């Protein structure tokens, strides 16, 4: 969940590593049932993995380097065997752990039906709409078309078991409405047609302050939600001048982050004064993972025009022809900052980045290609980014999860993603640093807290010194704004739940707990 911890749901209690950290053992809850009434078994877990491997699904190919096999010891007990390196240790224990929380268990019986239906064709298997799939969750499909998807509560849901909640979640139907654009979604939220809005609503506080609507967010005050991702501006390290750390850092420290947060995010982000920049989420768990004092001198809160100018002057990047713009190797520094068209908060942030360039003598113009064009260019990591048009560009970084912050750092800094024809992981600026790579490789196997902190601090140090990319804001994993015209008691800060149910989508895994407390406003 957003605190970086893993909470058992289908599993009965926490998983356990063996002493060598080569095997994970956990049990499936005996109460857990599929919607057809049969129990969820260890065999289902094992067969799910076997199917991924057999049909080489994306999940299968992504995890086979780390997972040797998944076996069912008995009806309840599952053992995951990690793939071992030459040194006899697990290649990456963190990613083995991550498998637990990031993949669905699929019923074996249904999988066999499916295999028969597609006659072993992997493409058909992946393309199957799975209308008849067995599920273990509280809600099943009721209706779906282009504008909405409706789920209906499974009245036999095993969450009623005494070991769980002893009752069913409150709403009988859940409707997921698909809106044309953000404005339509906002209008629907205002009108009370939507109970939970997970999109970015600018100036969310106006709903209750100005308009007096019964709308609230997880936190009552700014930033209104829990930041769990770091929207990041990447530098194209092949662009002339941007191969210089000084130029990169100068741009990064000149940017007016308070304005980005106030204007682009309408304050729905913690500021860099509140949470100094690092590679970490603004959550307590991640923030504790690095030594704040050790990198305090490297951190910046933005708007440091003089500092940026000094940095550039020092690096010899000066305006030699008097046109107001600095040159590097005789070439005027002129960049294009981009993000996908229509992604309004990113666009507004990019505008502020561009404004910063002007202050320090670097010409930055903005450009918003369509997403289809943008993603093709950015994710093609086996070729350099175009020097024209993609000098500074925005992408996301990993949110919260059990492998974090390691996974995020890997995706921001690791050179392993260079050369992929389709790179949806990260490091789109194609940064390469052997020191960083070594640290990233070492962390998964490390268990010593102090050692880990040291290593993370070193990575933050590299990140803040080299500036291959820079975070522009903190952003929630998903926004969580509720209209309480009908239901109330949505999850909110200090609502007394344990574990605190964070504002995810209220249906996935533990988040379902958020639906149990709902009560009607006027019962």
């Amino acid at each position, binding site marked *: 969940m957003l605190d970086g911890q893993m909470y058992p749901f289908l599993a009965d209690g926490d998983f356990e590593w063996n002493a060598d950290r080569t095997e994970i053992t956990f049990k499936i809850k005996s109460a857990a049932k599929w919607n057809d009434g049969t129990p969820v078994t260890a065999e289902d877990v094992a067969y799910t993995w076997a199917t991924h491997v057999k049909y080489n699904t994306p999940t299968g190919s992504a995890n086979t380097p780390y997972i040797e096999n998944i076996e069912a010891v008995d009806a309840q007990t599952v053992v995951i065997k990690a793939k071992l390196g030459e040194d006899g240790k697990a290649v990456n224990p963190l990613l083995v752990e991550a498998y637990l929380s990031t993949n669905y268990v699929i019923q074996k019986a249904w999988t066999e039906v499916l295999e028969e239906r597609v006659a072993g064709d992997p493409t058909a298997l992946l393309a199957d709409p799975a209308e008849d799939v067995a599920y273990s969750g509280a809600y099943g499909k009721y209706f779906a078309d282009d504008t909405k998807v409706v789920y209906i509560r499974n009245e036999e849901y095993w969450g009623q078991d005494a070991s769980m909640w002893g009752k069913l979640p409150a709403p009988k139907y859940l409707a997921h409405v698909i809106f044309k654009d*953000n404005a339509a979604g906002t209008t629907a939220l205002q009108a009370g047609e939507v109970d939970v809005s997970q999109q970015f609503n*600018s100036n969310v506080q106006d709903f209750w302050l100005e308009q007096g609507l*019964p709308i609230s967010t997880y936190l009552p005050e700014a930033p209104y939600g829990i930041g769990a991702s770091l929207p990041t501006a990447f530098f194209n390290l092949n662009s002339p001048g941007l191969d210089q750390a000084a130029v990169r850092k100068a741009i990064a420290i000149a940017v007016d982050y308070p304005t980005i947060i106030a*204007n682009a995010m309408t304050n729905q982000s913690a500021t860099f004064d509140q949470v100094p920049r690092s590679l970490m989420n603004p959550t307590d768990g991640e923030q504790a993972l690095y030594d704040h004092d050790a990198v305090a001198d490297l951190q910046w809160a933005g708007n440091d025009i003089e500092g940026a100018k000094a940095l550039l002057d020092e690096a010899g990047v000066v305006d030699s022809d008097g046109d107001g713009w600095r040159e590097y190797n005789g070439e005027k520094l002129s960049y294009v900052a981009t993000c996908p068209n229509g992604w309004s908060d990113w666009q507004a942030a990019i505008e502020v980045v561009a404004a910063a360039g002007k202050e320090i003598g670097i010409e930055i113009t903005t450009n918003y290609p369509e997403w289809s064009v943008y993603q093709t260019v950015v994710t093609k990591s086996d070729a350099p980014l175009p020097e024209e048009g993609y000098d500074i560009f925005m992408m996301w970084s990993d949110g919260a999860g059990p492998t974090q912050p390691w996974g995020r750092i890997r995706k921001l800094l690791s050179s392993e993603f260079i050369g992929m024809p389709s790179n949806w992981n990260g490091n789109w600026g194609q940064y390469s640093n052997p020191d960083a790579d070594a640290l990233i490789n070492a962390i998964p196997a490390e268990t010593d807290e102090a050692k880990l902190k040291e290593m993370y601090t070193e990575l933050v140090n590299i990140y803040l010194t080299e500036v291959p990319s820079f975070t522009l804001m903190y952003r929630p994993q998903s926004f969580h704004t509720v209209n309480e015209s009908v239901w109330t008691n949505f999850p909110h800060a200090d609502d007394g739940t344990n574990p605190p149910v964070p504002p995810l989508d209220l249906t996935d895994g533990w988040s379902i707990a958020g639906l149990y407390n709902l009560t009607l406003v006027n019962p």
Partner: protein
Amino acid sequence: MKHTIQQVFRSGKFVLGFSIFSAILLIVIFYPMFVKDSPLAILGQGTFFPPGIYVNVYDSMSSTAYTLNLPDAAAKRVANKLSEEDRLSIKEWLVAAGIPESEIDTTDTAKLLGQWSANFDPKKSIPGMTNARRNYFIRLNTSLKGLLSTEGATISQTNPETNELEQVDTVNQKDYVNVGEVANTRILLLGTDNFGRDILTELVAATRVSLQIGFVAGLIATLIGLTLGLLAGYIGGLIDDIIMFVTNLFTVIPTFVLLILISFSIGQEQRGAFTIAVVIGLTSWVWTARAVRSQVISLRNRDHVNLSKLSGHSIVHIILNDILPYIASYVIMALILQISSGILAEAGLSILGLGPRTTEVPTLGLMMNWAMIYQAHILGNWWAYLPVLVTIALITFSMNLMNTGLDQVFNPALRD
């Protein structure tokens, strides 16, 4: 000529349109001389500051305080913080907390606040109360602190040496500052936009750019339309067939769709205001060409053209002297229409996100686009889009007025 101009200015419609347009033009020309800020400078941290006069709080604290004994000051202060609605809400809470309704008097502020501070508990959850309501009570509680105090507020500063707070000054409740004496005040007549830019300054600059786009687009469209129309109409024959074929092609394809396609395909890197103007101009000449052609065809058979031919004049001379002056008034009207439709086309394109790139210049369409993206229309931040809409409307309205005014003068069928 002079006579024609006099006639034009006798048309009420033209004069009204001309006045509006001149006023806009004068503002566009003179406003930047007085307000020298860059129109794209981000002034505000935060989005959509409402219109008004902004007085620097820090400077007001250190400005000379004047004591004004205004009798209703306290009442206004209370009314500002504690509305009638708030009082009823307090009552609602108190009733839920078990106070008998008969003991609550919402008109007695002191008593009400006393009961409130004695009974309010932010932790307490009332069944059926929404989280939004709970948050409201917490905010209300905070805002009510010190409401009935008769004391002033103390201003303290950190002493850099001792790192301790030292009292510097006291602000009394009857202290007033003269806004004229405050070092920093800023009038934001139209507030700020989603970037924190001064909308008025931006609007003026945007109007100028949009007018420029309109003029360039209109001139290009009119020039192309005029040239093709003259050639097709006067020379006729195969040239006419070819030109009309192309023109008909353009007529069949909806201009705006064509505009969107071209605008999309040139990519945003190349999309400056001037490029957009050229693109608009290149796609909107069709009707001018058709209209000029038909006018020329009817003129071509007029006897004065025949007479000019018989007098041995060349084609160029005939077109310039015997055709052009006759359609000049029409062409001027077409130009005016083209300018105003150019401005609208830019706005339309920009609202779709296909306008000029943003960091360089503001345009009316881009302002609309950003206001829409940031949901100003949903959140009721009228100052972000209404003035833009009004400006667009005024420009096109004034141009259309001038046009109908001219039409009345030039078109004998419409004379009264």
